[in-house]
């Protein structure tokens, strides 16, 4: 039982990192990305590659994963600068689809559909983090650092600029804000931090394949942010906890067909999204009245 809870908390922190970073562009910058799972994947594959071939050190594998994701995220930032939010959904959806194709075809790097096995555990100063409890602490620390970083960032002028752009891009532009650079930076920050989750995921499970980085993951992450409340600090974390508890909750319900748990979970959060949008568009944490999201 203890092992089960430790595992759940570890996976929750990893997913919470993804939800918080996605919320950073969705809630603060108004960029609705359906390709967040791709950067999760980029982080995971890069960390796995580095850990297998060079060094499994936390201070080498993780920064490299972050840098690679940051560079690749420029591909996502490029269309984000050219078009309004509505059309960016299409571009990111396309990128998500393209990314999954590359993940499953580039066999020498990603192992194709079979994935990569035998990723060594992460080392912190030659100390191998194998004990699940220690790894849980490591992921919680990563989550806290990222949440703290984003909380600080959203208080700075950069964060205020982001919100200004979300609420009115033209007004921000008229006030002399460099909209292009601010948007690009926000995408780069969000994607590179998502890579941390990917790296954690890879060294935790020791095995990754493309299944974890599909459109379903991107949509699930979006659901976590929305159900919790986009544009709030706590919302995405609460959303993550709720959605991660759902599958185990459903497996306790004996009357549900056990083979369909995955589908039932998806239906549950699909329905939650619809109902929340009708009755409480701000999400669970957000205020019930319209306050953001233009």
């Amino acid at each position, binding site marked *: 039982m203890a092992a089960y809870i430790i595992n759940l908390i570890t996976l929750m922190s990893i997913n919470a990192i993804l939800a918080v970073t996605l919320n950073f562009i969705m809630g603060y910058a108004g960029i609705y990305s359906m390709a967040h799972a791709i950067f999760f994947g980029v982080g995971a594959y890069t960390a796995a590659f580095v850990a297998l071939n060079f060094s499994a050190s936390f201070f080498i594998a993780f920064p490299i994963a972050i840098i690679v994701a940051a560079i690749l995220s420029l591909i996502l930032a490029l*269309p984000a600068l*050219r078009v309004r939010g509505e*059309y960016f*959904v299409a571009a990111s959806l396309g990128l998500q689809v393209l990314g999954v194709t590359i993940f499953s075809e580039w066999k020498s790097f990603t192992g194709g559909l079979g994935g990569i096995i035998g990723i060594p555990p992460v080392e912190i100063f030659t100390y191998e983090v194998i004990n699940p409890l220690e790894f849980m602490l490591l992921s919680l620390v990563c989550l806290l650092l990222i949440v703290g970083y984003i909380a600080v960032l959203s208080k700075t002028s950069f964060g205020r600029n982001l919100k200004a752009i979300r609420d009115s891009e033209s007004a921000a532009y008229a006030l002399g804000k460099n909209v292009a650079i601010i948007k690009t930076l926000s995408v780069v920050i969000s994607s590179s931090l998502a890579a941390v989750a990917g790296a954690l995921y890879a060294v935790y499970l020791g095995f990754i394949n493309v299944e974890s980085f599909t459109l379903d993951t991107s949509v699930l992450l979006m659901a976590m942010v929305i159900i919790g409340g986009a544009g709030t600090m706590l919302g995405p974390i609460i959303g993550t906890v709720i959605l991660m508890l759902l599958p185990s909750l459903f497996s306790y319900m004996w009357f549900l067909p056990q083979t369909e748990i995955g589908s039932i979970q*998806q239906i549950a*959060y*699909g329905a939650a*999204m619809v109902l929340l949008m*009708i009755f409480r568009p701000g999400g669970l944490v957000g205020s019930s009245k319209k306050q953001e999201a*233009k």
Partner: protein
Amino acid sequence: MLFLQLVINGLQVGALYALIAVGFSLIFGATKIFHFAHGATFTIAAYVFYSLYSVQEVHWVLSALVAGLAAVLFGVFLDKCVYAPIQRHEGSFFTLFVASLGCGIIVQNLIGIIFGRGFVSVTTPLSQSVELFPGLFVSPLSGIAIICAVLAFAVLQTFLMKTHIGMALRSLSENPELIRVYGLSPRQLSSIVFALGSLLVVPAAILSASSSGLNPAMSHHIMLISLAATIVGGVGSLRGAAYAGLLLGMSENIALLYLGPQWSEAVTFIVLFLFIMFRPAGFFGRAIAS
């Protein structure tokens, strides 16, 4: 000969894409609702046709009619029960998009539970390809797809241009407030738009079910095509969406000369990406870069 074969396949796929994209573009253009569940409408129509025609062995005309009815009902239901309540209190792009996405997820999984997540195919007497020339296989479905698309667009064009409701629909995209002044109800018109847009995917759903089979997850692909074609064609331009659908179907097939079939969606994305980078207004649209 391979090239000619791919061109013919491209025309068939392109005609179907054009139908799908025009349906989405019509809805998005007139109501500004980002109808992400358009892909779900497609899967509903296709699976209703499959379960009636292939499983229950009902006559194809009746199956097609019921499939059409199901699609229209689903579209109008979403408009009345999901989008209308949201629009009453705010109706920002984001809220409508999320609600629509949620509906799409529900439908996809319900279909997965009912029909299974695997591939199913519909076999019709017309699915069989005929060898026209040595090495050139053409299925009668290609011809039917093209004729269907051309017919549908001709009827749609006449409807939008010549009838009173059509004119009202066009003005809905321009100025909903003024419509109210003229004593028409924007909500009622919006339902008509949803019925029309949903009806347009039905022939595409039936024909692609009969030519290439179905699975519950295909709604994502349909959405990618609709979105890409709407942007490539120029937002708000039905003609543009139709040409763009054709272009996407063509490029997907021509790319098979050089790439494996698993790259077909990547090709769609690259076309979309090039347009966003170099011509964000699309073929016929107004500038969308802000």
